[in-house]
């Protein structure tokens, strides 16, 4: 299990512990079976099959990259089993056998753009890792820009795991955008921010809005390289809700005081609670019954109120823009006020008409 997948698993196990301590679901204790997708999509599919066919689990929580979800999707659809996917993703999907507890594009990318527009950033430069999420995100960004009087000066992709960003930084500084929209993934963020910083580009003159940099990544990038930069998520460790104080405390108690919590972890943590709530409502862990009961299930979670949208099986989430602080935490500077209805196909956005 590579890097961040581990902490999502830890958060999910914490939720299971908590639910068991409170008496379990429908009078039964939850028993976790952990399998490792090894950051390898076909392995995700193999392990999902094993969990369903051999271990006969009630439901599966997990998946990391979009590719891992796409690889597992046919397994769950064919075997009519449930997957709870906890990561923000590129939308344009609504499988009847998947619940999406992370943000879809209109709960993360669109609010991020709204924020940049509000701040008067008209010229954008798009940087992403070469895979599905950044490419789809950038398509949305370009459509948004076209409809909102913004200009996209450049769109660049680098291979996954790429670590040489001097040429890209040169391209960016030459284009002189007002802001950079960053959909780089994993280790590439470290190299990108280090090299951007040492090229003397500061967050004040050219802020970078990132959608894959959370509290955990900040540590690896080095706070001094990323402090002052913008991120778009639905949850931060600093999010001020009673449920979050409890979550952060419980997580640190279980895994160590130096651990941080982040958006995907919180979404995974939520997923377990949402499933448990739906099962209670259905009075059964049967897949079809849970699916039917899930619509409208609503809970107060660390990120605030979340509600399952019965139609597309996504979750209503509050969008939050944050700024990375010198202590490595992220401070919220803007939020959407209320949970945003998930719209994976951006059907309610007129500018997105040509996308799907």
């Amino acid at each position, binding site marked *: *299990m*590579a*890097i*961040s997948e*581990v902490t999502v698993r830890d958060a999910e196990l914490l939720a299971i512990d908590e639910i068991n301590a409170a008496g379990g679901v429908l009078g039964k204790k939850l028993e976790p079976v952990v399998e490792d997708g090894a950051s390898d999509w076909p392995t995700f599919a193999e392990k999902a099959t094993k969990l369903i066919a051999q271990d006969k689990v009630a439901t599966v929580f997990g998946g990391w990259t979009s590719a891992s979800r796409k690889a597992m999707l046919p397994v769950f659809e064919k075997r009519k089993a449930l997957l709870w996917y906890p990561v923000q993703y590129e939308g344009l999907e609504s499988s009847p056998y998947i619940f999406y507890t992370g943000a879809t594009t209109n709960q993360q990318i669109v609010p991020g753009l709204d924020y940049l527009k509000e701040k008067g950033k008209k010229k954008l430069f798009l940087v992403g890792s*070469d895979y599905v999420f950044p490419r789809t995100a950038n398509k949305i960004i370009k459509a948004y820009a076209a409809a909102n009087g913004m200009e996209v000066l450049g769109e*660049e*992709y*680098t*291979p996954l*795991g*790429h*670590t*040489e960003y*001097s*040429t*890209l930084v*040169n*391209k960016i500084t*030459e284009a002189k955008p007002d802001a950079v929209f960053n959909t780089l993934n994993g*280790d590439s963020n*470290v*190299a990108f921010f*280090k*090299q951007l910083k*040492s*090229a*003397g580009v500061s967050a004040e003159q050219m802020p970078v809005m990132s959608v894959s940099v959370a509290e*955990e*990544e900040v*540590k*690896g*990038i*080095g*706070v*001094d390289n990323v402090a002052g930069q913008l991120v778009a998520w639905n949850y931060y460790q600093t999010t001020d809700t009673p449920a979050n104080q409890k979550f952060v405390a419980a997580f640190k108690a279980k895994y160590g005081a130096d651990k941080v919590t982040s958006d995907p972890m919180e979404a995974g943590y939520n997923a377990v609670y949402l499933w448990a709530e739906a099962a209670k409502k259905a009075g059964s862990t049967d897949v079809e019954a849970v699916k039917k009961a899930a619509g409208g299930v609503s809970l107060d979670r660390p990120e605030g109120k979340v509600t399952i949208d019965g139609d597309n099986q996504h979750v209503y989430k509050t969008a939050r823009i944050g700024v990375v602080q010198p202590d490595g935490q992220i401070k919220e500077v803007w939020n959407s006020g209320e949970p945003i209805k998930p719209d994976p196909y951006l059907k309610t956005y007129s500018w997105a008409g040509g996308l799907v």
Partner: protein
Amino acid sequence: MEGVLNQLPIGLSIGAVLLLIALGLTFTFGQMGVINMAHGEFIMAGAYTAYLLQGVGFLVALPAAFVVAGLMGLVLERTLIRRFYGRPLDTLLLTWGVSLMLQQLARDLFGAPNVQVVSPAWLRGGLGILPYNRLFIMALAVLSVLAIWAYMHKTGQGRRMRAVMQNRRLAATSGIDTGRVDQRTFFIGSGLAGVAGVALTLIGPVGPTLGTYYIVDAFLVVVAGGLGQLRGAVLAAIGLGLLNSYAEFWSDASLAKVIVFVAIIGFLQIRPQGLFFVRSRALT
């Protein structure tokens, strides 16, 4: 237009990174015939050394990483590689196994996420397009090459090393302890990987998979450089650095990698003699 000009120093600085990561390999691979897939993990060891020595001083980390990675190389040579001389393909697979274990070891020791290595304050800022840390890497690459050259040509150990590289059997019969020379070569080659690792903390991630990002590039430099000579590695690194820089500037990072690969295959068509030579009297 300024961007095009900027790509020149950028290309040179990419070349310097390539040279640093490949320098050790020109010894262990180019001259000893050992394909060390764990070279990337020695780079990683160097980077973690810099991580552990934060606060002590960045310049202290350089020799420390040289020694740490060098010792790792020495242990590897003494315990395993020694049995595999003359079987380069087997060493390749063997050291790959070692590299997997080292990656997992790093994960267990330091955790799976990247760790933070703060660049020293005196490397903040820059000169023109090149930040000081890039200039530092270039200077380090030049210094390493000079040091190696001086070692090989100006010291007795270096001369013995060259003797073994050119003709192992003859060297052995003229009283050179080839085993010792091999150990030294491996120590130096691996140590250089450690130095590269420290330098890479300035510009890239520091995590368990660090080595895997650089290993293929490092080998390509040695293949393109051929000859197993310092000169070949230097020229290949600079050439590939510039090619990378301009290919990426005019296309994108993904395509640049493909272009570099195609260029190397093409280069081999023109100058395969850089890559091997047939000994007429001792056919294999």
